[in-house]
């Protein structure tokens, strides 16, 4: 079946089994930033934006993506021109192994799109479904708060 989606601003049609996990399809199509962690919705490594909301790619089937607008970290920024969130994460040393970072960034982006002036507690709540097993959360939360300040300027 052809699955028509808008991915990172581009309209595409993917040939896929409608019962395949969207995570598998995304990785096959080259969106390697979407990581496979627990594969059951717990860890947040495969978080993407679906019509602007943070969701788990591992809990969606390809058929459910039909007609939806998807965003992965590939669309956020480039090494030469990183997104403010990416820049803040680098500057705050909020990355060690980096496995959870794409999911963290997208949960943070969804938060800032909805609430440009989040509190510390708002950031914790928005990221509470993204597990990090090496950096810890403090620097990540500080980076998101810093990015929100820069975006408001």
């Amino acid at each position: 079946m052809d699955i028509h989606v808008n991915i990172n601003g581009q309209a595409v049609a993917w040939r896929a089994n409608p019962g395949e996990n969207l995570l598998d399809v995304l990785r096959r199509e080259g969106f390697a930033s979407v990581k496979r962690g627990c594969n059951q919705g717990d860890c947040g490594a495969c978080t993407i934006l679906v019509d602007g909301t943070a969701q788990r790619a591992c809990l969606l089937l390809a058929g459910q993506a039909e007609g939806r607008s998807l965003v992965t970290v590939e669309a956020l920024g480039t090494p030469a021109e990183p997104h403010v969130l990416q820049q803040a994460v680098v500057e705050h040393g909020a990355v060690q192994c980096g496995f959870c970072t794409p999911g963290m960034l997208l949960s943070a982006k969804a938060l800032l799109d909805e609430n440009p002036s989040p509190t510390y507690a708002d950031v914790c709540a928005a990221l509470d479904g993204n597990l990090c097993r090496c950096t810890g959360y403090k620097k990540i939360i500080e980076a998101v708060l810093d990015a929100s300040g820069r975006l408001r300027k």
Partner: protein
Amino acid sequence: MIENAKVCLYPKNPGEVVRILEQEGRRALILAGGTTASQVRDPGVTTLVDITRMAPPTDALTHEDGEWFLGCNLRIQQLAAHAGLKQVFCGMLCDAALSVGSRPIRNAVTLGGNAVSVFRWSDPPVALLAMDASFDLVGPERERTLTADRFYSRHPRRILKPAEILKRIRVGVPSGRHGGAFFKFARTAFDLAVVDVAVCLWFDSDICSRARVAIGATRNVPWLSTRAARMLVGKRLEGKSIRAAARAAREETKTADDIRTGREYREQMVEVIVRRTIERAGDNALGV
């Protein structure tokens, strides 16, 4: 991966869903939020039915003539954040919705999926049972409405007839003095419930005239502790009656060990959490 899925259909209204389910029978699998359905490994499934494209009001939350209408495709996060619903029974359904998983999970999970494919530890169904919600179903023959007591008298999958779906849930806006509270007791912020309790209380001046004490995470569906309610009705809400109700709820609890905790601990926690939730509902009602 549902390996033998050949097609995904996008019906536009409940009638179309029912027709597809009638035609396809066990070959069809409903996808709402997909958070449980995507984990299904059934080689017999060939047709996926994405019901989230149904036209409004299946994804709407509206208020009319003293009742809230909650469409089956509302996402749990929409419920959690709804300002109007925060006024109904002191926001207990919003609290229950907010306790579901993490934000990305709540963005995906639908009210209908959560209500029908209920797990032992599911949170919103416990609040819906305490609030005495009504469940509007659409099937091949006719539409019918079930009370929450009936809907959760056993697993809803066994209550729904073949090709029948849940279209919406209705919650009445109580009049007079009343209060509600929901309490999830879990090991961590993100974990599934060890015990869930939801309580609704109605008052005639300061005498409790009606009580619904719903308990979750102890059996495969949420249940009402009628003995606890009996200890409250006709009395002032005070330490003695609240403690007696909490004890009664514990005595009525039938539960088992699981990976989260043992039976005995869970029974003890039923007593503790029922007591706290009644106190909270009472405070909400009496304006303490």
